[in-house]
């Protein structure tokens, strides 16, 4: 697996989409920070701060940092880039070569999985760094209390988990579809449809008046991700936002490994 990781590291240099994606992250965080500032100014003195806070919208530097990852941009970009890398590897024969030269298929899977996870970490970190910089630049200030800092780190950790789980699903989709174009479509589709399904579940629960049905939405990743930008985080939410992504990572990895082991290349 060491050889495979070395090879992937070498190949990553040539993936323009990785670098383009980072540039996109830079500009998106800037736009998001400016939008947050406008919202903040609009709310200032009108007593609307609390309303913005309750709506989970960015209204402060800290919220800008957290809100950007909670926004769809990073996950959306990762859906595209992971599909290009993993789906593309099947298309151009890289996976086939990796499987032939003495590597067990599970190792080939883990190479792609690790690659996707590393990319995810890089993208989220880039998002936090850019958001932090812009937040300072547009004048939100830099001071955190120890308590605030702890909360920020905790929310970041939960966001990491949710986005890593999304990436794991994108790896699974790419390994099932085995084509970059189809994988991009399906990964983005999954991301959008998942949110729609949650909305439908919540709506159905409200109409039917069944709170139990509403809890089903907790099993979805977009619920977890949006929970991390909510104004308050209950212990129950923290637990849900911890274990649901882990479950998604385990299940999607298991499906990836089982199908990859079974199917011909």
């Amino acid at each position, binding site marked *: 697996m060491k050889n495979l990781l070395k090879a992937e590291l070498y190949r990553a240099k040539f993936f323009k989409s990785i670098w383009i994606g980072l540039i996109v992250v830079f500009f998106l965080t800037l736009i998001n920070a400016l939008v947050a500032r406008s919202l903040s100014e609009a709310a200032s003195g009108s007593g609307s701060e609390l309303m913005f806070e309750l709506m989970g919208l960015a209204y402060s530097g800290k919220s800008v940092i957290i809100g950007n990852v909670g926004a769809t941009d990073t996950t959306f970009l990762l859906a595209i880039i992971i599909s290009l890398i993993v789906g593309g590897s099947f298309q151009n024969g890289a996976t*086939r070569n*990796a499987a032939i030269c003495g590597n067990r298929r599970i190792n080939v899977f883990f190479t792609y999985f690790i690659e996707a996870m590393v990319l995810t970490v890089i993208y989220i970190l880039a998002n936090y760094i850019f958001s932090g910089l812009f937040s300072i630049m547009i004048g939100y200030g830099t001071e955190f209390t120890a308590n605030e800092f702890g909360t920020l780190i905790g929310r970041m950790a939960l966001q990491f988990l949710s986005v890593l789980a999304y990436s794991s699903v994108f790896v699974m989709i790419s390994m099932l579809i085995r084509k970059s174009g189809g994988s991009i479509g399906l990964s983005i589709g999954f991301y959008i449809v998942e949110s729609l399904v949650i909305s439908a579940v919540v709506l159905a629960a409200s109409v039917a008046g069944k709170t139990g049905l509403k809890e089903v939405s907790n099993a979805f990743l977009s619920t977890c991700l949006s929970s991390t930008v909510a104004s308050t985080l209950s212990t129950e939410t923290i637990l849900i936002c911890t274990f649901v992504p882990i479950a998604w990572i385990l299940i999607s990895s298991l499906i990836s490994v089982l199908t990859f082991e079974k199917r011909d290349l």
Partner: protein
Amino acid sequence: MENIKQDFEFDFVKGEIKTATDSDISENNGFQAKTDRNLRPYVIKTENLSKFYKNKAAVDSVNVSVRQGDIYGLIGKNGAGKTTLFKIILGLAKPDNGTIELFNDATSIAESRKKIGYLIEYPSFSAKLTAFENLKYMALQKGCYDEKQIIELIDLVGLGNEIHKKFSAYSLGMKQRLGLAFALLGSPELLILDEPVNGLDPEAIQAVRNLILKLNREKNLTIVISSHLISELSKVADCYGVMANGKLVKEIDETELNEIVKPFIKLVVDDQTKTIDVLKSMGIENVKLANNGTVYCYDLVNRLSEISKKLAENGIVIFSISANEGDIENYFISLLGGNRQ
């Protein structure tokens, strides 16, 4: 494969070997003489290997035996199961039945596969990377990265001047040649080449043929090749497997094949017994009798006129006489279920 360029240098433009010492393959200069095939160890041995797709057998109870040093030609029509067989051997497809032994070892197949170089279906490279970058990536995957060897291999297949050109800008023939360079990465002991001359012009085909012979004879590399071009295959292979409808219908070595397809004279005469006596008096012992006064004669086949003259002098009436060249292509076509001409 180390310092491979010093051993071989092929001109893919002229289709010939450039080094003075290796100028003529047919002379066998410096080549290792092959030992008796049956004494050499197995490199690939399959037993009842089968693979089904939706209940249709793509590979059906195949028993292939490739021995060290063989150039094994796998012949079959499209869809005969050749590529599927290769994929199973390489671990790209899982067999539904049967066993595989690689390098006389059935236990560590994955490890054995490291010793295989291959070119299956089409060369698989990243379009945005150059020839060098593609080979470097694949060498890293194999754990055998050696910059010098990559440059030498690219030179070897005649792409030295195109080393930094992106793969997407390559012609089909160039892609095929890069595929061959890839197959040779990491000094494999077994080469599996699926239609290696697809898309190549005649001169490049000749160069590939020469390369295959050199690698086999000088490095004792075992090579398994599939090709639709039976005549081309017969110029390099010393052992054949014929596949039809997923089955290995025949496995035959060169000696056996030469025996079957050797040239002969076909005579139709009025008196077979007398004809045999006359032929024996001429030193022709290898004869076969058939119905309707037919006599097949396998010796002195280039002396047709002499034979007819002698038979006539002995009062034998000859209804017809014809010399037939041994035709490997026709033989294989008949095995594949086609009409033998």
